């Protein structure tokens, strides 16, 4: 056994609180270790060259690098040793940065800890076997979940790159939040004008198939070979026949349906097409408000429909799609006003949310772009915008900043002045967060050119007085209270994880953080990957984001998918379970516990034994710790290897 160990300084990150020289010196005493050194930046190009040369010079057959977390550079160094002709699974890594030098101040204790971490890695390395991965074919199709701007961008880029692309959107039309916006910051260009064409491209692209008003039901399989079940929710309208003429909507007597697209600013019909530019432009019945369903009789739409598309008996339909990769772009949700009792908890009609105000501003919105008070339809003169309505508020479980509110409030203040020249806008803010290109200038324009009055302080209470809404805030810079009698109050409610985000995460086996947003593989270097191979993130599903950032991520995710699926075959991770048929007693406990149904029963000369389906095994090792006789072992994490680590730590 000829083990070589490289201890990394990582500049001062490790050497700062660990005596790396001593770690090397102690390591040399370990049985099997023929070479140990410390190096400034092991991951650097010369650092890797050093490893390769040493392997050749010293004839190493095992390599250990003590540096950062294997989650960071294991892949890097595996490639390095492979280039030097060593099987990549003969490499081990000891994490002496994240788990040692960065969390302990005591140099002596850290050094000792590092020495043991290395000893443990060496013990394991010695028991590592060369493993060779087999290759398997990939399905060159991609599924994009969510057709907001991020999802659409990802889908279009994938399709342009030549991939069959399937898009699942849970609402009746594509477009997401952006389709609801009036203008966009900091350019004030019309949101739907720039989004509309993309929406059209999406449905017209010959390599894109859209399932609108559908949701992902179930996901099976693994990178390159996912089987996805999609629930197409019933619309009670046969979309193959519906032409989107809109006659049904005109004639529908159910006039008080909740308007999801307009966020409840005004009611819509029980059968409706969500908005003029909707894609697909198809009608859908909301059974909650449809008389045919609530009263059991009506049938007006069925009578007036020129193509006889209405079908009250229609039911959900499950379709299956096989894909090689998945992009999750499910966007974000908004904080429920009921969580803000001091702002009226939604009881006051003239206290509305930012997205509702977008609909008021929007020419194709319910008021045709006229800003009026929901209570009495009059034009407001005094408007108050409240930022951080729920954001940065631990007490209601939203400790984070919602990212884009500062900017859209500035935009809305500007647009308000355009719509109502003799109106006055006030903006309560804690900090103005405008780090993007041209962003800060934009917030300045709102104040300097459009006369929005910015007040540095939080709003404590909003209550009605006569026809006005009294906004009770503070000006912390003056150290005074501020009371404004407003005609209309707009709350920048916190951006939250999309409803149902966690359920989808569980179907996809990706993780989500304490706030419900999906967790990327690495915050800096793998921003659109997840820890599940073949599943990628785009847009606000990963955390609140504005349009430019969402679009960039959409393209980034697409690039990742394209590079993954550019290969005809993928290498399987050989660190999977293997059955020693001789030792197997055929109890098949493993078969019952395997989370992936990756174990099948086999007949070995009349003897019942377990066998692993290599492509399906994900390498969790549940079977290994289930097997009563150690017959099934997870490669690279065998009982012997782990016990060797335990011994290296405990036997002293």
């Amino acid at each position: 056994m000829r083990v070589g160990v490289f201890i990394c300084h990582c500049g001062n990150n490790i050497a700062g609180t660990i005596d790396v020289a001593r770690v090397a010196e102690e390591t040399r005493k370990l049985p099997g270790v023929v070479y140990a050194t410390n190096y400034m930046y092991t991951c650097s190009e010369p650092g890797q060259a050093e490893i390769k040369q040493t392997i050749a010079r010293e004839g190493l057959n095992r390599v250990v690098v003590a540096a950062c977390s294997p989650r960071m550079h294991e892949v890097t160094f595996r490639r390095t040793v492979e280039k030097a002709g060593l099987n990549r699974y003969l490499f081990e890594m000891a994490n002496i940065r994240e788990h040692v030098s960065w969390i302990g101040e005591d140099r002596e204790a850290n050094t000792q800890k590092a020495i043991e971490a290395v000893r443990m890695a060496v013990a394991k390395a010695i028991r590592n076997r060369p493993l060779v991965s087999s290759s398997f074919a990939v399905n060159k199709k991609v599924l994009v979940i969510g057709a907001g701007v991020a999802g659409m961008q990802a889908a279009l880029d994938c399709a342009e790159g030549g991939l069959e692309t399937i898009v699942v959107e849970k609402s009746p039309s594509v477009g997401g939040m952006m389709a609801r916006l009036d203008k966009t910051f900091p350019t004030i260009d019309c949101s739907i004008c720039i989004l509309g064409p993309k929406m059209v491209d999406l449905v017209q692209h010959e390599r894109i198939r859209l399932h609108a008003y559908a949701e992902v039901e179930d996901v099976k399989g693994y990178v390159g070979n996912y089987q996805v079940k999609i629930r197409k929710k019933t619309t009670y309208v046969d979309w193959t026949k519906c032409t989107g003429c809109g006659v049904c909507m005109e004639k529908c007597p159910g006039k008080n349906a909740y308007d999801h697209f307009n966020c409840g600013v005004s009611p819509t019909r029980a059968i409706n097409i969500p908005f003029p530019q909707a894609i697909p432009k198809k009608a859908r019945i909301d059974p909650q408000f449809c008389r045919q369903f609530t009263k059991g009789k009506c049938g007006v739409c069925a009578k007036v429909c020129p193509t006889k598309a209405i079908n009250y008996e229609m039911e959900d339909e499950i379709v299956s799609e096989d894909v090689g990769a998945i992009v999750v772009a499910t966007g974000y949700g908004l904080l429920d006003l009921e969580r803000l009792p001091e702002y009226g908890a939604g009881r006051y009609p003239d206290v509305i949310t930012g997205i509702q105000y977008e609909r008021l501003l929007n020419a194709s919105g319910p008021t045709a772009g006229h800003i009026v008070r929901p209570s009495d339809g009059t034009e407001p003169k005094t408007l108050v915008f409240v930022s951080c309505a729920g954001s940065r508020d631990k007490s209601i479980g939203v400790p984070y900043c919602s990212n884009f509110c500062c900017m859209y409030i500035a935009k809305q203040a500007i647009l308000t002045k355009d719509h109502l020249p003799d109106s006055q806008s006030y903006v309560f803010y804690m900090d103005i967060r405008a780090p993007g290109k041209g962003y800060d200038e934009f917030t300045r324009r709102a104040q300097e050119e459009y006369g929005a009055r910015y007040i540095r302080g939080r709003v404590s209470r909003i209550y009605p007085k006569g026809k006005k809404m009294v906004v009770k805030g503070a000006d912390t810079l003056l150290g005074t209270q501020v009371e404004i009698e407003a005609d209309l109050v707009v709350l920048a409610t916190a951006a939250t994880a999309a409803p149902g985000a966690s359920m989808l995460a569980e179907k996809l086996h990706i993780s989500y953080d304490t706030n419900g947003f999906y967790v990327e593989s690495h915050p800096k270097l793998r921003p659109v990957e997840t820890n599940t191979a073949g599943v990628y993130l785009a847009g606000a599903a990963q955390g609140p984001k504005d349009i430019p950032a969402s679009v960039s991520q959409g393209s980034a995710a697409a690039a990742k998918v394209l590079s993954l699926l550019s290969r005809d075959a993928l290498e399987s991770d050989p660190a999977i379970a293997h059955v020693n048929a001789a030792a197997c007693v055929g109890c098949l406990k493993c078969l019952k516990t395997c989370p992936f149904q990756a174990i099948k029963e086999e007949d070995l000369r009349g003897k019942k034994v377990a066998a692993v389906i290599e492509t399906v095994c994900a390498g969790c090792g549940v079977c290994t710790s289930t097997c009563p006789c150690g017959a099934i072992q997870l490669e690279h994490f065998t009982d012997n290897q782990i016990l060797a680590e335990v011994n290296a730590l405990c036997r002293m």
Partner: protein
Amino acid sequence: MGAINPTVDRERDFMSEVVKESGENPILCYQCGNCTAGCPYTEFFDHPVHRIMRLIQAGQREAVMASKAIWLCASCETCTTRCPCEIDVAHIMDTLRAMALREKKCAVRDVLTFYDAFLASLKKHGRIFEMGILMRYNLLSGHVFADADLGPKVLAKGLISFLPRNIRGRDEVARIFKKFDEKRR
């Protein structure tokens, strides 16, 4: 207030003292101003609540102990109820008042005089004798005719009695005060 030197130790101690006394952590305050915005008393304060919190963070003992605000806070709990950082602000104000008192500081005499009159009555009778408090307060505060206008109304309605009601256990209550004074001495 002149330029402050955050490195002077005495100033740093102040915050840890407040933390220790109140069990609350003022460093959690990010100065959003919600407390000041909601406080019914801001207009009467010399320092608005959020600034009191800031002064603690900055270790400005003198300014805080000398402030009127801590005496004009009525513990209405609005700040505590709405603080996004979940700080029990009202309790911190309470604590500051007690600390000031121990430093023999009080920026709003009348309030303290009233509290003293109240507690004196409580100590003497075991319960509150409103008439007694009022008279004692008027004498000590020098506002001899405070609320005199209410006199006729109150008397006409027989709302207030001229005789204190003593409870049997009033020396027991007095003992509480006695032991307390010894403890704090």
